[in-house]
């Protein structure tokens, strides 16, 4: 059963990523193009000579964007399916386990917050032409550190919720778990180093639109993953038990 769920998760992630890539093509790529136009105009961007173009912009926005999104979608979809496999029949309300489709959608919404939104609050996505080439290793470690902390905090939140369950009602236990998550994440975000490499003359509206579109693509990906996987999983689980 778990294997069936795993490949359905990867398929759902792939399909969701294609939708997210379409969204990104429409809403985010115009901002990427504007950023690159600025970068070219400003010429000599450290270590990246403008003359050596390996792939055209058309390839980067087309095959490149879809490949990157699809790999990401299939990867997170696979992990998502495993988390679903664990939560299925274990997570519920008033002693009744949640059905597959609401469970998948709820897990996807949580994953969006934990994996995409919260790390982006500390280290928001940046368009090309923002960020110093020399600090990429440091920024990568900081970003993965933040994402890891958010995941650990979510596990801690789930643990707090479960510890509270025998003592308080379900809703209060859930609030307690979410508070625990929020406190850990807030403390972590205060302690992790600040990174601000946006050039002083970079247009604020362009930066805002890029970041909004990037988060929009992520929300499309997770929402579609939750809905598509929920549908596939419900069909499979039903077939198995009928």
């Amino acid at each position: 059963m778990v294997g069936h769920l795993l490949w359905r998760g990867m398929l759902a992630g792939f399909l969701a990523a294609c939708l997210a890539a379409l969204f990104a093509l429409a809403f985010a790529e115009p901002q990427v193009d504007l950023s690159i136009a600025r970068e070219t105009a400003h010429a000599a961007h450290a270590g990246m000579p403008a003359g050596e173009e390996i792939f055209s912009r058309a390839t980067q926005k087309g095959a490149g964007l879809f490949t990157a999104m699809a790999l990401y979608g299939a990867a997170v979809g696979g992990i998502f399916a495993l988390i679903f496999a664990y939560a299925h029949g274990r997570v519920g309300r008033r002693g009744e386990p949640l059905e597959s489709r609401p469970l998948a959608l709820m897990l996807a919404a949580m994953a969006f917050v934990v994996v995409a939104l919260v790390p982006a609050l500390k280290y928001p996505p940046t368009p090309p032409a923002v960020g110093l080439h020399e600090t990429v290793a440091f920024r990568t470690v900081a970003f993965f550190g933040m994402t890891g902390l958010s995941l650990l905090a979510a596990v801690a939140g789930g643990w707090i919720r479960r510890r509270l369950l025998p003592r308080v009602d379900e809703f209060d236990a859930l609030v307690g778990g979410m508070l625990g998550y929020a406190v850990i994440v807030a403390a972590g975000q205060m302690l992790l180093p600040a990174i601000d490499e946006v050039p002083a003359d970079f247009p604020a509206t362009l930066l805002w639109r890029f970041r909004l579109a990037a988060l929009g693509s992520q929300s499309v990906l997770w929402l579609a993953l939750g809905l598509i996987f929920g549908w596939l999983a419900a069909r499979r689980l039903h077939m198995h038990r009928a």
Partner: protein
Amino acid sequence: MATRTTFNDVILAPGDTGAIPLAEIVPWALLALLLATICLYFVSTEQGAVSLFDGMAVHEFVHDGRHLLGFPCH
């Protein structure tokens, strides 16, 4: 002769909510993590902070996705 073919995929059976034993999940979880790590590494980090292959082809190909998914690109 009546053929009894029913398609009731969309309707959830009450039995839809049985838990899967942890021992059955763990080996698949390891496989999923391994596959995901390889995929995510190439999307997020290769030829950025760390390079397994020379050149910038991987970096340039996944460039837009890397920026949009929030990974530090360059």
